[in-house]
């Protein structure tokens, strides 16, 4: 499998998502796509509101782990292609920080693979979110 670029600096734009869909229109064996978009939520922490999340990753480990997650998804599900993009750096509330895009001949494989990849990312990939609360205050994000 070719080396992929999983990480992007800054938020993932809605335009990029649209362009990604457009790029797949030439792949005529595809009958279904599934897309997961993670958006930074304005959680409230005590009496403060999350303004943004600053993401860092241990990239030397994250990239091979992500590659093996993708290989596992291709082994388990009948996929035509799959893509993952995760943001690094500051992502403001309302912006997209994770884009998982799976394509398959039929819907079931696309949907199951997308769910599999999202859950595996949350469990296995060393990415860390710092929830910025304004005025130099922050807390480390905990996935639920």
């Amino acid at each position, binding site marked *: 499998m070719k080396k992929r670029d999983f990480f992007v600096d800054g938020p993932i734009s809605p335009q990029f998502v649209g362009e990604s869909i457009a790029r797949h229109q030439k792949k005529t064996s595809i009958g279904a796509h599934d897309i997961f978009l993670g958006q930074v939520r304005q959680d409230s922490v005590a009496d403060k509101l999350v303004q943004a999340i600053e993401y860092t990753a241990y990239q030397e480990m994250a990239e*091979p782990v992500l590659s093996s997650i993708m290989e596992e998804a291709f082994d388990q599900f009948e996929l035509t292609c799959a893509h993952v993009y995760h943001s690094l750096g500051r992502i403001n509330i309302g912006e997209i920080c994770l884009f998982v895009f799976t394509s398959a001949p039929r819907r079931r494989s696309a949907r199951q693979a997308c769910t599999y990849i999202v859950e595996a990312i949350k469990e296995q990939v*060393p990415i860390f979110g710092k929830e910025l609360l304004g005025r130099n205050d922050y807390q480390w994000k905990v996935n639920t």
Partner: protein
Amino acid sequence: MMQITIKYFGLTIDCTSRSEEQLSFTGNLSDLKQYLIIKYPLLGQAIFQVAVNQVITNDSKIEDGDEVVLLPQYSGG
């Protein structure tokens, strides 16, 4: 003495006030954890896994030139 690189992520950066350091060290991974907890007492209350050369391990062996990384709970997505 072995020369090792230690990297910190997430909460463990707060515990140590650094993201990376070089260390001359003799001992295994358990010795290293004990050493770091004495050096940075806040680490004693933190929950983290350890990766040696990009692989999560409980194996106690460390070798010269290894990269040891403290990884608290992941929070991607």
